[in-house]
C-alpha cells in the first residue's frame, strides 16, 4: 500500500492538471517534456542513486533508441512500434557488451569510461552521415499510431508520456523493494560487504545498467516520433550532464526526487526567459544555492521541511510522547 500511495498521488496530479488548465502551454508542451526527462532521470537514478554507479553517458542510450527508430521508420519503412522494439534490442545488446568491462571500473575511472562512451556515440551520430543524416539530422519521422489512434497533438503526447511515467515509476518502485533492489542498495553501501553476503555484484550491476539503458532507449524512440526530427545535439554530452544534474538535484536514491529534479530543470528555464540576457546566470545561481543549502537533494529537503512544519504546527513538541500516534502514519 505504501508503495502505491505515491503513485496514486502522482497519477491524480497528472490527470488533474490538464483538466484544471485545459490547453495550457505549460501543461501540454512543457509538461510532456518534464515527463520525458523524468523517465530518463528515473532510469539514471536506478544506476546512480541505488546501485551507486555513476554514468556520464546516459544520453547515448537515449540517442541510440531515437536514431534506431528514426532510421528504421524513415529509411526502411518499418512499423514505428516494431522499430521501438528493435531500438531497445540494439541498445540492450550494446549495453550488455560494454557493461562488464566498464562496470569493473570505479569512481573517476567509471565516470571517464561512460563519458568516453557518450562522446563516441555522439561522434558517430555526426560522422555517419549516410545513415544518421550527419549534423543536419533526420527529418520526416512518421508519427506513432496505437490501435489505429495516431498520436499527433501535444495533448496526445501528454497522455502517452504521463502513462509511460506512471508505468516506469511503478516498475522501478517494485524493483527497488524486491530482492534485486535490496541487492542494489547493498552494493551501493559496500561492494565487498555485498559480495560477502552472497550477492553476485557483477551480474547485479550489469542487469541494472542494461535495464537503465533499455528505459532510456524506449523514451528515445518516443522522443523521435514526438519531435518528427532529430539531430545529434539532442544527445550530446551536455544532455548527459543535464540528466545527472536532475538526479543529484532531486535527491539521489529517490524516484520521486528524480521526477522533481526533472521538473525543476525543465520548468525553471521556461520561467526564467523573462530575465532575457541574464537567464543562464540566474539559472546557474539557483542551482548553486540549491546544492549549497540542500545538499541531500531538493525533494528530500522539501520533504523534511514540510514534515517539520507540519509536526510543529499540528503537534507542538511535547516532553512526553502524546497519544497522536495515528498522525504519524507517514514516518
Amino acid at each position: 500500500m505504501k508503495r502505491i500511495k505515491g503513485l496514486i498521488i502522482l497519477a491524480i496530479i497528472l490527470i488533474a492538471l490538464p483538466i484544471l488548465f485545459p490547453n495550457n502551454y505549460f501543461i501540454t508542451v512543457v509538461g510532456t517534456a518534464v515527463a520525458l526527462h523524468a523517465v530518463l532521470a528515473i532510469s539514471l537514478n536506478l544506476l546512480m542513486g541505488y546501485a551507486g554507479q555513476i554514468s556520464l553517458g546516459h544520453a547515448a542510450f537515449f540517442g541510440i533508441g531515437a536514431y534506431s527508430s528514426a532510421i528504421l521508420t524513415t529509411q526502411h519503412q518499418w512499423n514505428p512500434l516494431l522499430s521501438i522494439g528493435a531500438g531497445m534490442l540494439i541498445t540492450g545488446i550494446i549495453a550488455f557488451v560494454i557493461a562488464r568491462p566498464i562496470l569493473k571500473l570505479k569512481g573517476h575511472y567509471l565516470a571517464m569510461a561512460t563519458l568516453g562512451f557518450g562522446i563516441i556515440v555522439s561522434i558517430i551520430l555526426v560522422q555517419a552521415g549516410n545513415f544518421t543524416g550527419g549534423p543536419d539530422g533526420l527529418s520526416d519521422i512518421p508519427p506513432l499510431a496505437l490501435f489505429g489512434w495516431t498520436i499527433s497533438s501535444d495533448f496526445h503526447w501528454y497522455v502517452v508520456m504521463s502513462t509511460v511515467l506512471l508505468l516506469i515509476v511503478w516498475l522501478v518502485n517494485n524493483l527497488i523493494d524486491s530482492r534485486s533492489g535490496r541487492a542494489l542498495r547493498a552494493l551501493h553501501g559496500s561492494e565487498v560487504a555485498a559480495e560477502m553476503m552472497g550477492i553476485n555484484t557483477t551480474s547485479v550491476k550489469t542487469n541494472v545498467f542494461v535495464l537503465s539503458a533499455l528505459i532510456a532507449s524506449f523514451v528515445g524512440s518516443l522522443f523521435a516520433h514526438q519531435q518528427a526530427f532529430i539531430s545529434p545535439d539532442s544527445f550530446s554530452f551536455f544532455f548527459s550532464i543535464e540528466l545527472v544534474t536532475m538526479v543529484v538535484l532531486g535527491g539521489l536514491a529517490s524516484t520521486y526526487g528524480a521526477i522533481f529534479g526533472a521538473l525543476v530543470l525543465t520548468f525553471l528555464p521556461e520561467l526564467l526567459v523573462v530575465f532575457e540576457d541574464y537567464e543562464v546566470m540566474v539559472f546557474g545561481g539557483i542551482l548553486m544555492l540549491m546544492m549549497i543549502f540542500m545538499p541531500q537533494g531538493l525533494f528530500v529537503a522539501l520533504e523534511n521541511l514540510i514534515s517539520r512544519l507540519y509536526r510543529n504546527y499540528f503537534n507542538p513538541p511535547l516532553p512526553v510522547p502524546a497519544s497522536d500516534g495515528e498522525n504519524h502514519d507517514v514516518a
Partner: protein
Amino acid sequence: MRFNKKSVTAITAAVGISVLSSVAVAADTIKVGTFLAVTGGASFLGDPELKTLQMYIESINASGGIDGKKVELIHYDTAGKAKEAVKFAKRLIKKDRVDVIVGGSTSGSTMSVIPLAEKNKIPFISLAGSVKIINPVNKWVFKTPHTDRMAAAKVFEDMKRRGISKIALISGNGGFGKSGRGQSLALAPEYGISVVSDESYGAKDTDMTTQLTKIRNTDAEAILNFGFGSGPAIVTKNVRQLGIELPLYQSHGVASKKYIELAGDAAEGVRLPAAALLVASSLNDNDPQKQVLLDYKNRFEAKHGAVSTFGGHAYDGLLIALEAIDRANSTNKAKVRDEIEKTTNFIGTGGVFNMSASDHLGLGLDAFKMLEIKNGNWTIVK
C-alpha cells in the same frame, strides 16, 4: 526511504499554480516571433540578426507601425541547439501566439522547426543557409539567405572562366561544411569540374597542414574550402605557409571582416562568393540594390559596429514578412503566407527577391558577387 505524501501534493500544487497564471494579452499588435543563436558557437549569426530585428522594429513603430498597428518582437535564444529551437518555436506558436516567425540562425535549428510550422500552419521565414530548407518546397517555410548550392555554383562558374577543371575540396565537418561539401560534389560535374581530392577537418582543429600536404601532392588546379568559424582562416594561412600557389576559393561562410583579420596577409588573392552588402559602396550607382545596402549598412554601423551579411538576412526576412502583412491587410496566417509567396521585386540586402510557389527563396545566381580580397579589403571580380 521516508517521504511525506502530503508534501508532494502541496509542493506540486504550489509550483503549478504560480506558473499557470499566464497572462493573456489582447492588445492589437502584430507579433513577430524569433528564435536565434544569440549565444554559443553560432552567435556570429544570431547576434547581428537580433540587433537588426530590434533596430528595424523600433524604427517601424516610431513611424507609426504597419496599418496603424505596432509590431512586437518576441525573441528567444537557442544557443544554436536544435532541441532548444523546437522548444522555443512551440512556445512562440502555442503560448505567445505570434503571427509570423522570422528566425532560425542555423540550418539545424531551422530543419527541426519545419515540421512544427507545417503542422501549425504558421508562416516561417528562415535565416539559415542550407538548400534543404526550401528544396523540396514546404508550404509554410521560406528563407532569405543564399543557399550553399548557389555558392558552389558561383565558385564553379568563376573557375570555369579561368579554365580550371580539377579542384581539391577541403571542408569543415560541421553542418555548414558538410552540406556545402555535398552540394559541391553534386554540382561539380555539371561544370565539367572533377574533384581530385576531398579532405575534411574538425571544428576545433588548429592545423590543417596534413590535409593540405595531401592536396599539394595531387594535380589539383585550385582549392575550394567550405566552412565557417576559425577553420577557413587556418586553411588560408596553412596554404601560404606550405607555399602552395594554387588559387584558393572560400565560401560565403567567411564573408565578414573577421576572416580577413584572422587570416591576415595570407587572405590576399582569396576569392569567395558573397552578397553585395560587403561591397555596397563600390557598386555601380544604377545598381538597384545600392541604396538599400548603403541604408542598412550605415544604420547598422552607426549603432553596432561592422556590418555582416548575416544581419542582412534578418532585415530581408523581417521586411518581406511585414510587407506581406501590409499587403494582406490582416494577420490571417493563410493570407500572409500567400502574400509572402507573391513577393516580387523586393530589393533586399541579399539580392532582388522574386518568390513563387515553386521557389521559396526567390534569388538568382546574380545575387552573389564574386569577391577577391585585395589589400585587406573586398573587391568585386569583374
